């Protein structure tokens, strides 16, 4: 389990994150939502060990995250960033196989071929395996990057806006993958903008506003009309469809 306690981050004198206490629990999909610039990506960077917090502590099973070496950390958690350009025309299969690199020269590496094939399949990109990554469309690149992160086979998986450049079906696919990973006992943390998508797939929802944790809990607890309106500065209507909250902005 990864735990953040009283975490704060200052960037160039500005506090972008403050007093956040949050647990990342295995077997659960935790979705981070909030307005632009609220600090979601910064929180994700802190939880994944990419950015050391200015205040507070992040631990993985009681160990300080910053004290874990690069390579070991790469076996414990994987991160899908929003940056998915590749400098040279590698093939899709090669890019996904790079996800296995933290396991090189360990006994785990005997599973490389299976892990890559499964990841290609899960992200629905098996048919692209022989294509050059640089020749793919934005949505295809996003899915291949997801496959790479899945191939890494870590117990904790961070996805930073994984649905950003995807069509409706592939958005749902990605969130279904997230659910399935949680079903396998992994911890999944996803940053999303779409509150309805978040409400449909999250076990727990964390709403971030102005660098602070506004609310954590089940989607139904967190997403109330009053709270969403206050945080986003936009009046909304909440409907329940199949027991899941659907957020619709009030339009003229």
């Amino acid at each position: 389990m990864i735990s953040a306690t009283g975490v704060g981050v200052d960037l160039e004198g500005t506090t972008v994150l403050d007093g956040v206490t949050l647990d990342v629990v295995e077997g659960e999909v935790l979705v981070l939502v909030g307005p632009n610039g609220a600090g979601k990506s910064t929180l994700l960077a802190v939880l994944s060990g990419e950015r050391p917090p200015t205040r507070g502590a992040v631990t993985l099973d009681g160990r300080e995250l910053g004290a874990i070496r690069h390579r070991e950390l790469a076996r414990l958690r994987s991160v899908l960033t929003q940056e998915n350009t590749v400098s040279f025309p590698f093939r899709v299969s090669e890019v996904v196989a790079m996800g296995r690199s933290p396991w090189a020269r360990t006994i785990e590496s005997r599973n490389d071929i299976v892990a890559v094939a499964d990841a290609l399949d899960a992200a629905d990109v098996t048919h692209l395996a022989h294509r050059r990554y640089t020749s793919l469309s934005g949505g295809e690149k996003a899915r291949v990057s997801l496959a790479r992160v899945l191939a890494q086979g870590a117990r904790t998986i961070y996805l930073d806006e994984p649905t950003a450049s995807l069509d409706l079906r592939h958005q749902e696919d990605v969130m279904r993958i997230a659910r399935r990973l949680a079903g396998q006992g992994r911890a999944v943390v996803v940053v999303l903008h779409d509150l309805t998508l978040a409400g449909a797939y999250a076990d727990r929802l964390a709403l971030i506003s102005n660098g602070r944790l506004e609310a954590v809990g089940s989607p139904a607890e967190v997403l109330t009309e009053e709270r969403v309106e206050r945080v986003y500065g936009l009046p909304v209507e909440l409907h329940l469809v199949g027991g899941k909250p659907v957020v619709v902005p009030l339009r003229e």
Partner: protein
Amino acid sequence: MSERGGARVARGVLLSGVLAALLVGGVILSSMLGQLAVTPTEVVGSVLRATGIPNGWAPTDPIVESTLWVVRFPRIAMGLAVGAALAVAGAVMQAIFGNPLAEPGVVGVSSGGAFGAAVAIVLGLTSFGVGTLAVFAFAGSLLATMLVYVVSRANGRTEVVTLLLTGIAVNAFAGAGLAFLLFIADSGGREQIVFWQLGSLNGSRWQEVAIVAAVAALGTAAAIVLGRRFDILALGERNARHLGVNVEALRIGSIILVALLTGVAVAFCGIIAFVGLVVPHVIRMVIGPAHRALIVASSFGGGALMVFSDLLARSVVVGADLPIGLLTSLIGGPFFFFLLFRQRKRSGGWA
């Protein structure tokens, strides 16, 4: 999957075969041609005799023998070593800049090395031995590489425009330094500095060849060890870090590697531009961008290119020895332009 994988292996084998043929062919051809014509059997015989195999092909004329071993062979060996060093330096540079247009000559690392070597000449330090020159060239190259690296990178990548502009600035600065040194140097020093600016394999000695070859071999081995990490670095700096690569250490190690390979080449042969651009690029087109294979093939490809360029340099004009840097730039310039043009078309702008 296996069918396509097989095709790629076949391409790799084909490339190795072509490179080997080019190398051996180039070496023999280059040993034969010159003011004193030597037959291919004499070349092979002489090499066999030197390795302890007595044979009937070996030349009986001591002039032929000394032409081969004092003039031509060291020159050819130098070409192989320098070509390998420059091509590998180019491949490594492209990997850490995340940009296929990065090249020691283009971004000013070679000029930095030449400036360092010129400083050693003007200060009269060359009398301390050939190593001094190499150390100064390495220092100049290192300084230039670090400068380019610090100035031109943003968010772990280097845009083409920034890279080229930085290259112009570094080249201009090193050029000014060289001009100043030319101005204050005596006539002997001047001649030497001009030689550095043009690049040549003329007058290579075994002692120098040994230094360049040792650095080229060690540098290539180091680059091969780092190869997998270079692959992962292509995903961008953040993603590489998330995959457990110590990006900072890789970056520093690679900068030193590039400076070392370029510096040693420049120290003994002057500025020979575009080898590091053309060779890895052509090889990437044939076998793909995976760095281990790319670096190995580049070292052989660079050697082959240099041997043929040098052969051309000393046989195009009868009785004259053209600077080899002139020739590689003559080929590399248009190639560079073509790459720029293609990249511009692909990305829809100069970014």
